[in-house]
């Protein structure tokens, strides 16, 4: 199992603004283009993080959100 320093505590101020910007990213795009735009965003953020282990940890969390971890 890989380690990582994934911070899952609430860290954002203005969460609604950021959420709105995320929705706007795919505004007017069809499903394929939307998926591509979100993938670009993920890749940009992953590169910015510059922390392989944390990225892999985040992928594990994304695969299985905490709410159904025991499901």
């Amino acid at each position: 199992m890989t380690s990582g320093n994934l911070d899952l505590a609430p860290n954002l101020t203005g969460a609604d603004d950021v959420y709105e910007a995320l929705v706007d990213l795919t505004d007017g795009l069809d499903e394929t283009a939307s998926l591509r735009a979100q993938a670009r965003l993920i890749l940009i953020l992953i590169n910015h993080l510059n922390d392989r282990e944390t990225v892999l940890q985040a992928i594990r969390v994304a695969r299985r959100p905490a709410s159904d971890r025991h499901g």
Partner: protein
Amino acid sequence: MINARGFKVFRQFEPSPVPFPDGREHTTVAIVGAGPVGLAMALDLGRRGHPVVVLSRLDFVAQASKAICFSKRTLDIFDRLGIGDAIMAKGLTWEVGKIFWRDASDPVYRYDTRPLKDQKRPGFVNIQQYYIEEFLVEALAELPNVELRWGHKVEAVTPMNDGVDLHVTAASGTYDLRAEWVIACDGSRSTMRRELGLDFDGRVFQDNFLIADIRMKHEMPMERWFWFDPPFNPGQSALMHKQPDDVWRLDFQLGWNVDRDAAILPENVEPYVRAMLGDDVEFEREWYSVYTFQCRRMDRFVHGRTIFAGDAAHLVSPFGARGCNGGFADVDNLGWKLDCVIRGVAGEALLESYNVEATAAAEENHIHSTRSSDFLTPKSTASRALRDAVLELARDHEFARPMVNSGRPSTAIVFDSPLSTPDAEEWTDGVRPGSVVVDAPLGDGWLLESIGEEFTLLSRGWRGKAPVGLRVVEVDDRDRLAIERLGLEEGAAYLVRPDQYVAARWKSACDADVEAALHRALAA
């Protein structure tokens, strides 16, 4: 020339006569299959003086589209086998690959297959597989202890404790051949594997690729060019690569639901070629074929006295040129080990290290091959979006370019080997045990050339007494690059296996350290 069975023939051989009709015969080594891997295996063991019989079901070398890209590691192996210069003289050298996306004339990604310069051999040489086979056959003709038998087919296999009985048929009769060792190099549809009832599990990829090998006069830098979603093959990929004799390999991804027989008809191939190269391009058909690919391998490559190598043991996608080059890596790994076992220098336990190392290499090739396939043929809408996102970003942002994957070029595999002695000292540079020695200029020649075909101690002023029979190569203070690349401080030494892999290294070693490491490298 087309033979009776419709194969385009590069070289036809006289069917070999049966040696002792309806009789029994004995040999030390029998090699089943005379493709590049079987022939190279015969050359390796033949050069070491062993009696070798090669059984080839076919009696010709086919002039078909097979392997064309031979890696630096393979070229180093060819040098050791004495055919490196001939292949370099005929082949075309390349190191740079360019990847294009859609209609842009600038590549989204450019890579160098051999970023470390000042090595004897280049990243890759392109040459048709039939030339490789030809050079191997010529080299084997010089060895009186190697016999090539064309048109001899293994019909039945009986494993024994101290050998294998092969029942062989040829045009002029049948015979039984008892071999102390059999090396099965008989390809992906291996008769040996089937006769012994052995596994070959893996994964089939649902995609078809059209190969159009054509002859034409065309100017282009000697590079590998690859396209994702080009205007001439929308939504699919394509590849263009030069071979000797003005032959070009064009490779078009077709998708899964196609009529494979129809796809290779000239009237269906030509539109692809003209779309890529222009309506007025003049070319001749060399060979058209459609392939799908699979990643399969045997669980074990060593089964008693039968040992599997090349496509018979493992099959990968062609992306990255890991098929034929992977087979030569098997030859390189197995040759010296079987030599040591036959000569009684090592026990059969040494062959288990071939199983460990060669299956690890196959596994690594499978991982690379599968990853390339997933990039070339995304399996879902989401993975296609991710792939396209990488290509979009790669155009403008350097960070995304290393993710662009059209095949990761074959290089020497690094493995955790039972034959390696772990470092006892702290090393921050150099070549770690389980890796192949990196080449560098050495005196008037090259470091890899100096290693030869036996165990070698690369030393920089090591003062100990080497075990009997161990060659010592002294690296001179003037061999600056070799010293730098090996991290070879004054008094340091590397123990190098006959396949040029590092077995052990020391900054300072006593005689007993070297002796113990040599024992370990022989699985003693």
